[in-house]
């Protein structure tokens, strides 16, 4: 965490990167309008912004990698004391790797899948240096050791596909560090990772910074950045709208946009408070507790009940128990949050609840009547009672269909060809209820933004008027601000329609904000459950305690 003295120390050192008035344009379209930034040794500077804000392009311009057709101009572009304003490709090649290391979000595509990671790292040493092969080998092992890779000699022989997401990211960081660059640029380095893995990668980056390496961190998530950064630049529409020390930006932001970004972080925000600006919140509840309590009509039979349900799959190593004796209850109008890391069996629970998978043992009951035990023919008429939305909304739509057809199909209607805006079939109303304009009806989901796609997915689920909505990582692929809008939308819809939600996520902040009750899953079992308040303030199981500690949250919020 930063303080004023460390910032002052950083300012005294010569900068690793000193950029003034950086402009990047593609054709006639300028995407970065005069960005200035400095990073000194041992300092972590973060650029925060939504997708399309120009933060990644800015970072890439520092490596001379802005892309084909990009025109980069600047008043000053000094990297490691060299002016590179109009440097040749050759000059850039010397800077990359040796001067600046780059870590990207998706290590799976950044590492060659056919080559062992040891050779990937060795490549950087071989191309740039004149080290003897044996010296290179020990250097590779040192690097893997340094990034906390377990059993470096064995890991060096593995291919990237054989490693888990976290280890793969470590391997990528090791290859970026191979030539000891004074500056490391990390573009969304933890976005695709589980919270505990994310925490370990952030700790690793913090170590690297303490060792004197400058760090330029790019992220859309203020909560992630807050842990590590000394200074934060908030970018929007290709401009830096706010800049300051982490304490200043997070503690007393001056720009409304920064405040909106901070407000969008769901962790520690009470249930029912709007995360996005201009969210249409329903009739305000008299008091938060009065809003939450009447929905849990404990006397009623649960809407959905999983009773000692188990499901296993055959895996190369034998049977894999994906879900092992799980019992859950979801009541009308309440949200049950299901938290766990990848591979913990969350999605299998969702599939069991949707009866897309049938349990090996145990039963699933819908409204007190058999659900999993029914033959498909008898279950089909009742299927509309449970809806589902997924992480990747786009893949859940038939690629040939327009939004109007998708929604009409969900209602069991046929769309007349002429009815392009869907006014005749009530599709316009449905779109309106999820905050979309009726003009979206004639479009295909491929042409919509991520947030719009998820809204269409929600509209489709609502079209069948379900009582229970199963949300499997519905906001994990979205930017924080879009995530805030979708969470607000789900919250409003639940209020208006008395929907029950099974909300599955690896993100504790999101689950905390959305849920009345929470269940924590690990290795196919539920290890802890209770009211959201109890689980998040007084966690019992050590694993839950660890998860909570790892989960990024804002240390301080502006009043």
């Amino acid at each position, binding site marked *: 965490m930063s303080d004023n003295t460390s910032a002052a120390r950083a300012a005294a050192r010569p900068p690793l990167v000193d950029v003034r008035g950086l402009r990047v344009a593609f054709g006639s379209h300028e995407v970065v309008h005069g960005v200035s930034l400095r990073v000194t040794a041992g300092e972590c500077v973060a650029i925060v912004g939504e997708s399309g804000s120009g933060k990644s392009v800015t970072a890439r311009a520092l490596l001379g990698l802005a892309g084909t057709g990009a025109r980069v101009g600047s008043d000053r572009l000094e990297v490691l004391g060299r002016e590179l304003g109009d440097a040749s490709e050759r000059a850039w090649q010397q800077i990359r790797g040796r001067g600046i290391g780059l870590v990207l979000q998706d290590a799976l595509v950044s590492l060659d899948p056919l080559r062992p990671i040891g050779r990937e790292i060795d490549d950087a040493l071989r191309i740039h240096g004149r080290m003897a092969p044996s010296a290179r080998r020990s250097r590779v092992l040192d690097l893997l050791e340094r990034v906390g890779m377990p059993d470096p000699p064995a890991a060096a022989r593995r291919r990237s596909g054989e490693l888990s997401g976290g280890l793969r990211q470590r391997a990528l960081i090791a290859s970026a560090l191979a030539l000891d660059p004074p500056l490391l640029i990390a573009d969304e380095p933890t976005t695709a990772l589980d919270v505990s893995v994310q925490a370990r990668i952030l700790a690793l980056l913090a170590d690297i910074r303490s060792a004197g390496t400058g760090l330029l961190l790019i992220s859309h998530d203020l909560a992630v950045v807050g842990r590590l950064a000394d200074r934060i630049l908030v970018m929007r529409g290709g401009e830096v709208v706010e800049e300051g020390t982490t304490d200043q930006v997070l503690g007393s932001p001056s720009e409304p946009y920064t405040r909106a970004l901070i407000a969008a972080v769901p962790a520690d925000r009470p249930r029912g408070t709007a995360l996005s600006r201009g969210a249409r919140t329903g009739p305000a509840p008299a008091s938060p507790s009065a809003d939450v309590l009447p929905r849990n009509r404990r006397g009623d039979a649960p809407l959905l009940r999983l009773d000692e349900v188990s499901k296993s799959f055959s895996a190369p190593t034998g049977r894999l128990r994906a879900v092992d004796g799980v019992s859950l209850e979801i009541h009308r109008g309440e949200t049950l949050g299901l938290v766990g890391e990848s591979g913990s069996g969350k999605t299998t629970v969702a599939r069991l609840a949707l009866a897309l998978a049938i349990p090996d043992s145990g039963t699933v009951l819908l409204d007190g009547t058999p659900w999993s035990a029914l033959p498909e023919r008898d279950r*089909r*008429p009742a*299927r509309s009672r449970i809806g589902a939305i*997924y992480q990747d909304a786009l893949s859940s*739509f038939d690629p040939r269909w327009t939004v109007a057809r998708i929604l009409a*199909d969900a209602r069991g209607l046929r769309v007349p060809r002429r009815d392009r805006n869907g006014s005749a079939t009530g599709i316009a109303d449905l779109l309106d209820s999820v905050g979309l304009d009726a*003009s*979206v009806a*004639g479009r*295909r989901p491929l042409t919509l933004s991520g947030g719009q796609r998820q809204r269409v997915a929600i509209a489709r689920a609502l079209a069948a008027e379900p009582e229970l909505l199963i949300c499997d990582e519905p906001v994990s692929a979205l930017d924080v601000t879009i995530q805030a809008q979708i969470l607000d939308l789900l919250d409003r819809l639940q209020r208006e329609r008395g929907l029950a939600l099974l909300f599955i996520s690896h993100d504790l902040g999101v689950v905390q904000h959305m849920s009345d009750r929470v269940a924590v899953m690990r290795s196919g079992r539920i290890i802890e459950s209770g009211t959201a308040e109890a689980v998040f303030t007084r966690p019992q199981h050590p694993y839950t305690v660890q998860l909570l500690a790892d989960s990024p949250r804002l240390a301080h919020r502006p009043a």
Partner: protein
Amino acid sequence: MSELELRQTRVAASADHLEARGRRFPLPSTLLAGAFVIFLGVSTVFPALVWTQEPNAIEATEAFEAPSLAHWFGTDESGRDVYSRVIAGTGTSLLIGVSATSIGLLLGLVLGVLASFGGRVLDFGVNRVIEVMFAFPGLLLALLVIVVYGPGPVTATVAVGLSTAPGYARIIRSRLLSIRSSHYVEAARVLGHPASAILARHVLPNALLPIFVLATLGVGQAIVWASALSYLGLGAQPPAAEWGAMLAAGRTYLAGAWWLTVFPGLMIVATTIATTVLGRALVRHGSGQR
């Protein structure tokens, strides 16, 4: 609505506009290909409308004339007009191409559906059949059929159809399998749609639409193969004016009279390109891109 949303809406609106425009105006290449296919259609149904003289009319005094205004594609060794013969051959060549592709596609569809819907045992069996068929080079398989049933246009068609079937079968099988396990099919199941409706609305259209382009590509390919068989004297027999047979007949005079082989060859190439371009345009239209 936040400013961000407004911006997204504006961007989206312009995308919508583009999409609508794309639907109204086909690309020039599509128009050209369409015009050529219409020309081929007319040549097939009413060849007399487009040829300049009887394709088999012999005029010994006009043998081996180079292309001119009187004979656009020149004349052959018997003084027959090459252009008219190319037109007369369109019907035969197209019929062979289209029927061979249909046979291959139909057989591929049967094998593909059996493999993907018939359970594990059938999938295993069908896959082995496909592999054995693949093991023979296409032309060898065709030759085998012709050896058994004798040369002629019908056998050539069946032979070419048979040899293309395993390729189609494999593609159809993998498409069906991936679509059946796709998220959108799952979403339809969650909505409570019956399996038959899911099959008709999602699985078959999405599996077969891309196969359709492949088939248009296949028509050209089948014409080339059938021409090859005719060239070897195993397909259409001279004096029939089939393109492959014309190539075969012209090869003797390749040094002196290039037009005997070049123009039928060009027709094969042009037909292949035109059907492919048109097929791709149809698929783009179906998937909403330009």
